[in-house]
């Protein structure tokens, strides 16, 4: 029964359909990565700068978002926001939900990275006549990012894995398309699940090898 499934589950049509899903998975991931790197850095710097009131406020919101399940945020963006007049297509709802959540996670990494830079670096830069902004851009951020690369990459790995949650709002990404394929025939379940697992694994294992290489190179 199972062997039968292996041979008939992967017709060219089904394989192309699954690969299309992989395209959407990668698309959501890439856009969310870029957006959350930008927002995460900004929020992390705001928290680090300890501006009166504002930093506390941003930090609290960040903590709330970080401590919610991503699935809930996805449902909220897609099902609840239309109630207050914000209608988003599925793809963008997923991107916005993922970017919001991952920005909050990355902000925490950025804040930690900035705090790990020695205070003497600030004082030295300021004493040499650099402005606060210049110190941040030329002295602190380059050192902090070096240390942040491994945790940021493992966060990206969870981002790729978490795109599968968009199945909940019927985004046609890889896991969802897998479901469609094995709905045709129950003998397809095992081969399709294994194939999807392999694709995710290769994608993420590749990323984790980069993380290990970066860790090794920078340590």
């Amino acid at each position: 029964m199972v062997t039968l499934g292996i041979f008939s589950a992967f017709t060219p049509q089904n394989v192309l359909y699954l690969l299309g899903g992989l395209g959407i998975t990668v698309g959501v991931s890439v856009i969310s990565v870029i957006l959350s790197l930008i927002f995460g850095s900004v929020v992390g710097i705001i928290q680090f700068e300890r501006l009166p009131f504002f930093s506390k406020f941003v930090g609290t919101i960040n903590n709330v978002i970080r401590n919610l399940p991503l699935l809930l945020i996805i449902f909220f963006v897609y099902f609840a926001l239309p109630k207050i007049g914000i209608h988003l297509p599925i793809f963008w709802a997923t991107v916005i939900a993922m970017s919001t959540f991952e920005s909050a996670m990355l902000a925490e990494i950025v804040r930690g990275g900035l705090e790990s830079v020695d205070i003497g670096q600030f004082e030295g830069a300021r004493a040499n006549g650099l402005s606060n902004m210049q110190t941040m851009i030329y002295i602190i951020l380059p050192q902090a990012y070096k240390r942040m690369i491994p945790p940021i990459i493992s966060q990206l790995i969870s981002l790729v894995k978490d795109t599968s949650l968009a199945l909940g709002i019927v985004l046609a990404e890889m896991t969802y398309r897998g479901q469609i394929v094995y709905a045709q025939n129950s003998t397809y379940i095992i081969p399709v699940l294994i194939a999807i697992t392999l694709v995710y694994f290769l994608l993420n294992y590749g990323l984790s090898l980069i993380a290990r290489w970066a860790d090794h190179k920078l340590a």
Partner: protein
Amino acid sequence: MNLLQDNFPTFLQGFGYTLLSSVIALVGSMILGTGFAIMQIVPQKWARKIGNVYVQVFRNIPLLIITFFFFLVVSKYIKMSGFTSGTVALMLYTSAFIAETVRAGILSVDSGQMEGARANGLSFAQAMQHIVLPQAFRISLPSLGNQFINLVKNSSILAFVGGLDLMYQGNMVAANTFDTFSTYIIVAIFYLVITLPLSYYMQHLERKLKHAA
């Protein structure tokens, strides 16, 4: 706030199932994770290999896929509900992360501790159990706490397999009342009741450990 009053038992039941699943998965993944962490550092090469493969596999595939595997495939041979398959998947998935955390903790314990214990006549297992692991757990407590927060958040995956958890009940209430906005806000508050205090406590612990070092 009528919505909360009318559906309070439903939310509470979901909250209970979320907590139950999280605690079971936590206990299971602590045991499994510690086991795999030790496997990765024992002298035997084959054991290290197995431990490493286990961690790499479960860390790099989505929790949802593991859940579906138990719900659709394993449940054909061993009868299990959505709640059970979700909780087992959660346990295996989290154990890989806990293995990494505990392994890092063990490695950060000074190697002289192990050598001293062995020199005093303790076996590898005894030295591990009585000398190294207690110190390793202390060091990795903040990261373990963060893993538990992730676990609580990830338990929302049960909603996909009819696991009766908070997210599942929230979806039910949202579908029945059409008031998605208030429902999801209430669900969010229920989650935050567990995760937010834990998160602040872990930040506090981290700061304390940093000062102690």
